[in-house]
């Protein structure tokens, strides 16, 4: 079974802090994704990566950055946290295009509160 692990289930930070959300997958997947989920807005893609050190902006990248130094790990960084970044953050991974289209597998999410 694919395992996508997010480092924290709940996180509370203060406005202006630099926040790191970590995600690790154990299935050698090429693609990794970060979403945020808000009531009434559904899931929105922040960033994704299709290879180590590669990244692509999703629909709402402003205020975020990402890092992928190793294939199994994809980090989301809030450079200077703001209250409007309070949300549920979901990480996902999938097999790369070269091995056929496969669904994304999700972690359990990190509920982040910015005070």
């Amino acid at each position, binding site marked *: 079974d694919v395992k996508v692990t997010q480092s924290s289930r709940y996180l509370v930070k203060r406005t202006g802090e630099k926040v790191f959300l970590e995600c690790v997958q154990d299935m050698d997947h090429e693609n990794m*994704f970060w979403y945020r989920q808000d009531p009434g807005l*559904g899931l929105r*893609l922040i960033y994704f990566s299709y290879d180590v050190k590669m990244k692509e902006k999703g629909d709402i990248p402003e205020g975020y950055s990402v890092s992928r130094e190793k294939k199994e790990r994809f980090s989301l960084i809030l450079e200077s946290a703001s209250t409007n970044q309070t949300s549920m953050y979901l990480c996902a991974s999938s097999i790369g295009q070269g091995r056929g*289209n496969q669904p994304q597998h*999700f972690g359990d*999410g990190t*509920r982040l509160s910015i005070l």
Partner: protein
Amino acid sequence: AQSVTQPDIHITVSEGASLELRCNYSYGATPYLFWYVQSPGQGLQLLLKYFSGDTLVQGIKGFEAEFKRSQSSFNLRKPSVHWSDAAEYFCAVLPSGAGSYQLTFGKGTKLSVIP
């Protein structure tokens, strides 16, 4: 760009009753189609997927979905709902072309089950 519509925000059914959740998509060709389920406070779990072939696909937990090209629909069904099926359900599409990574999700349908 593709889009996904789940017309029902919230559905309530009695335990043991049948269930159908609607999903319509907009895309120029036949995309890859998915249904995910999210229990409260959890990540998304893949229920089933359609890539090609038989238009009726079976998934986990007794769910099935039928792809209808003429209606651009991919409705999720279950013949007899259990109380543990109470959750939020998301339909998603992935373009079938090469280099397509981005899933587009519907806004979700919340299912409540009356004992």
